[in-house]
């Protein structure tokens, strides 16, 4: 499943880069995040309870940040599993200055399996994009008030 999007953030590129790499910002903005623990350099273990409406599940997994080219680019690799399914994905985040702010482009390729992938296939892409959108909207708000 390929997902992508763009966001405009009202902060200069260095501030956006710092925020994206700040575990506290990730903790505040990741929907349903229960726990985020740094277990190695640029490697985190996370537990999330996510879903839509009544359909929710708890997933735990690992997130790794690689190919860091501050302040413009990094890649993410993640994998997780829970009662309703498992997922494995990788993505990239690219930043470029735009006026007084920053243009953020994200894209990812995710494989989802298990019950949620079978039964929820119709909504997986849309809901996934929505949750990722919530994450970036939250960052937008944090950065907007910061400047």
């Amino acid at each position: 499943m390929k997902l992508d999007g763009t966001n405009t953030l009202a902060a200069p590129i260095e501030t956006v880069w710092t925020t994206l790499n700040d575990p506290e910002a990730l903790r505040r903005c990741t929907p349903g995040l229960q726990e985020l623990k740094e277990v190695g350099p640029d490697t985190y273990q996370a537990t999330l309870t996510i879903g839509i409406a009544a359909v929710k599940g708890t997933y735990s997994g690992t997130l790794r940040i690689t190919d860091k080219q501050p302040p413009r680019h990094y890649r993410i690799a993640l994998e997780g599993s829970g009662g309703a399914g498992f997922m494995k994905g990788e993505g990239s985040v690219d930043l470029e200055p735009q006026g007084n702010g920053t243009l953020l482009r994200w894209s990812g390729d995710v494989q989802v399996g298990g019950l949620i992938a079978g039964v929820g296939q119709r909504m997986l892409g849309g809901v996934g994009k929505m949750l990722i959108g919530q994450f970036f909207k939250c960052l937008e708000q944090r950065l907007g008030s910061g400047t």
Partner: protein
Amino acid sequence: MKPAAFEYFAPRTVEQAVDLLAQHGDQAKVLAGGQSLVPLMNMRLARPAVIVDINRVDGLEYIVAAPAVLRIGALTRQRAAERSRLVAERCPLLRDALRLVGHVQIRNRGTVAGSIAHADPAAELTAVLTALDGEVVARGPGGTRVIAASDLFVTYLTTSLDPREIITEVRFPALPPGTGWSWMEIARRHGDFALAGVGVVLALGGGVITEARIALTGVGPTPVRATSAERLLTGRAPSEGLWADAAEAVRAAVDPDGDIHASAEYRRHVAGVLVQRALCEALTRVREAA
């Protein structure tokens, strides 16, 4: 599979049901027909801690024709509405859409209100409510309120209902005499969720379109009201060319997701095709009514 453990209540009145929801908040789910909720629970994709079964609440099963509006109580089964003479006379668009909701076994238990509260992105009844500018009556701890269709559907499986609210009635505006309608959808097998579905209402006067309503399902997180296409049609004389223009306007207005059942491009294309065919059928019915 079996559901995760839950507490079960079967209130006898709406007040008792609302009290239970107020107590348990978003830990509770209302059980009416159960045709969406129970499979989710059995697969453990949803694990509500509390179930408030409203099937024993009196006074919620009715279809009443008020002037210009069909009032349908929250426990009215889809099959009863589908076979109702009042629905056939006052709101045949609803009847036609009901016939395509799942399978008859589902419609025997599933409720009209339940389908609307569940807000599946490919549901028929949510799109019909949207096409007709219907509304729901909701009761909660704060009292009763009326929610218009345009304010009800938020995103996938999500309405603006508070978790402590229960729908008590759904209101579908009746089709004025002389109006044409059409419901069309496409699915891979009969009874499958629609890949795209369209509900259309058309009225003519003096040889031109005086009213056009177009709502779609399956092409986004909520039902889509194709207002740009509606504006394009109003005041114009019907023609094949006009239907084609409306189809293009609809294609420009929708942003469907793709999945293993159908690509985004397919859904977008087919939405336009269905609009064209539905407008054609609606026009035939206008002429038959005249």
